[in-house]
């Protein structure tokens, strides 16, 4: 568990901190996720993806649940994540981080904004539409194409 923590805690903590904006709350999410993994290692199915991306997705879900003061909506056993890299190594993670930031930086501002509001604030497309005044369909398209842009960066 110590080795796993040392490898992946930064990913979990940083995304939780970005969502929650509070170090204590981010630590709680960190603690909760690793304890769940400790209690039930079967939660993560290594045949269906890498642990790093899976933890990142779970951390984001749990942080959003905490932000919105709601019960966990996603059963983490059901979450399958298909992506490379694994985010395990520092160098690998640093390169990936650079690519992602570059991709986000080159996105049109409204698209990046819609994606970040959905991802980090857990806002629905309807809520984003209401906040920005943009049509619902436009927000939906921006969110999807934003995620696909990130994928293309790594596929290239």
């Amino acid at each position, binding site marked *: *568990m*110590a080795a796993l*923590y*040392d490898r992946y*805690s*930064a*990913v979990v*903590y*940083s*995304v939780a*901190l970005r969502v929650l904006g509070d*170090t204590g709350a*981010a*630590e709680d999410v*960190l*603690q909760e996720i*690793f*304890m769940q993994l*400790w*209690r*039930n*290692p*079967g939660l993560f199915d290594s045949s*269906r*993806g890498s642990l790093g*991306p*899976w933890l*990142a*997705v779970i*951390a*984001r879900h749990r942080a959003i649940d905490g932000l919105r003061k709601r019960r966990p*909506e*996603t059963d983490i056993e059901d*979450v399958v*994540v*298909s*992506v*490379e890299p694994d985010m395990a190594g520092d160098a690998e*993670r640093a390169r*990936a*981080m650079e690519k*992602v*930031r570059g991709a986000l930086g080159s996105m049109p501002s409204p698209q990046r904004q819609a*994606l970040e509001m*959905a*991802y*980090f604030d*857990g*806002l*629905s*497309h309807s809520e984003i539409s209401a906040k920005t005044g943009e049509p619902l369909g436009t927000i*939906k398209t921006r*969110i*999807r194409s934003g*995620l*696909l842009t*990130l*994928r293309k*960066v*790594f596929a290239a």
Partner: protein
Amino acid sequence: MSVHEQFGEDLALHALGVLQGGERATLEKHLETCADCRGELEQLRGDMALMALSVAGPVPPGRARQRLMDAVAHEPRRTASSTQRSWWTFVPWVAAAALTVGLVVVWLQNSDLQREIAGLRNDSAQQSAELQRARDVVSTLTATDAMRVTLVAAKTPPQPQGKAIYVRDRSSLIFLASNLQPLPPEKAYELWLIPTSGAPIPAGVFKPDARGSATVVDPPLPAGVQAKAFAITAEPEGGSASPTMPILLIGAGE
């Protein structure tokens, strides 16, 4: 991979966990049967994981690590066999057990029914056999082509005779006669049940055949009459309400 384009945007929203209501229900139903869209959902979650990297940098304080290690030390890890399971994990086993119990119950009920049917068949076969024997007896007794022989002392000329067999509880009467004298066409013999008290009761009008034989089977009679004797008289063809003298044959119960 060919994702159903109409679900493309909803898949992205679902990966982010913000799809709600009818849209979510529709998509989840579609995902049950569409492997391509399930694959795309996994890809989109991968894209989300990449998104997390955009904020990578901060590291948790040392106390967070210590807190986790302390918690881990105080909570033994579960083995695979004792992995916590949701209640629904047992549903198939419970269903299988219920099905087995149900099958056993059905089998037992079926066995009971089979036994009951076998018993009824047996009863039915016995009743059929008894009925057939009764029919045979009646048929023999009442057959017009039956040879009826009355044995008397040797060298005694044939005498008119009648044999009445009466069962009071069932008001059932069989009467057999032989060697009766022929009657004029407007006349017939009439059988009488003479009760222990009261007037004689008509018990059937009949004409003998060419050989002087006759039978009366189950004539209409009042229920439960105690018979003292039976008698035969000659009456008009349509029968009489009371006997016309003389009495031609009479016999009392043994």
